[in-house]
């Protein structure tokens, strides 16, 4: 009996120390998007829509976004991935990407000897609601091709 009491006395402070619980978070690889070999052009926040996006492009698209070219490079490929924003779980004061909302692909293609054309495609992700409506194609083409690349060191 006495030894049981002494055990309790020893165990009590240990129990109090171990109250510092360390749960493990659940990682969410479904929020990642693999843009293949395309490079980062920039990120775009939209608080009115509650979204955050990444614009990627191949080398020709990146050249377009980095220099003021008079017309788009034929062969430029862009990918604009848009996520729904969610609060960062460990830091009140940051919004981060949650579910993928949409993936837009844009290609600048050769129409004939002198003209180019745009090949635009809008795909929805898990964060897209059926009633959300689709963006207007010409506006999106203008938006994507007019983006300047973010400055990198």
């Amino acid at each position: 009996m006495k030894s049981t009491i002494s055990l309790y006395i020893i165990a009590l402070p240990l129990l109090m120390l171990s109250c510092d619980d360390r749960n493990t978070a659940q990682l969410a690889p479904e929020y990642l998007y693999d843009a293949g070999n395309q490079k980062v052009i920039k990120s775009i926040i939209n608080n009115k829509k509650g979204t955050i996006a990444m614009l990627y492009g191949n080398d020709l698209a990146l050249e377009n976004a980095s220099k003021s070219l008079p017309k788009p490079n034929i062969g430029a490929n862009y990918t604009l991935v848009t996520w729904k924003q969610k609060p960062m779980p460990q830091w009140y004061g940051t919004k981060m990407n949650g579910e993928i909302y949409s993936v837009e692909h844009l290609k600048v293609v050769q129409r004939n000897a002198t003209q180019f054309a745009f090949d635009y495609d809008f795909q929805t992700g898990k964060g897209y609601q059926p009633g959300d409506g689709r963006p207007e194609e010409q506006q999106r083409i203008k938006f994507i091709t007019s983006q300047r690349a973010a400055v990198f060191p």
Partner: protein
Amino acid sequence: MKKPGLKFYKSAAVVLTLIFVGMQISSPDIENPPVTSEIVAPADVKQILERACYDCHSNEAKVEWFDKIAPASFLIKRDIEEARSRFNFSEWDKNPAGVQELLLWEMVNAIEQGKMPLKRYQLAHPGGKVSESELAVLKKYVNTLPGRHKVDTARIVAQPSSSQKVSTPKTPVSLNGIPYSADYKNWKIISVTDKFDGGSMRIVYGNDIMVKAIGKRQLPFPDGARIVKVVWGKQAEDKEGNVLPGNFQNAQFMIKDSKKYSTTEGWGFAKFDGLDLKPAGKTILFEQTCANCHRLLAPENDFVFNVPTK
């Protein structure tokens, strides 16, 4: 086994009493150095800080009689010294304005996660608890700080100035030996963020080991995992609500090597400021500043904030 008799317990009691009395003689005094530059905050905010934080994070610690009894007094002295070294409301101006804001956001987060005030402090000081409504007051306050709605209106600079270029060595190296490397430009993106405190937007890259670990939902992250966070200011919102990156601010590195970086939870930290990539920090202690906040607020994520989690 022979059970210890009454004699054993008697002599044990005498020894323990002697140790206890001996401890009281060497029990440390908790001193309050002068208040040099106290934090200025609205009355309702200040009142919460004074009640819940000042006993450890200021030079106005109110020490109760039971705090002076050893061995508790040793623990309390250590806690107060540690708390004052993190931030001290009585010497608030020792921190640059930007750091003051970051500390206030960190406090809100520490309280929200129940990490502060310390549980052992609350056990002895039941009045030290911060209620939900008080946390709401603190949250409202941090959202009024100047960095919250900071807009980068400066002309976007794409090249470091020529004078900086000359004085910078080819590869900037952090004080803990981590060199800057542009490899990350070929890595995958693991998160994209909008940070309110300080007003910045970030793209976070992970190397192959890091991305594979996320794919396998593997925590803690394996050695060899690397993360680079690239930070820009935020331009003014356009009429459609788009906010675009402004000037490049810094690049932050985290490298997992559980042996090499064992004193900072297995992660090597580095930060390179501006287009000339000046390594951050005046002394190697800078990495402890990084680790302290990651250790306190993100232990569930293997100390990484910017990973995709449910």
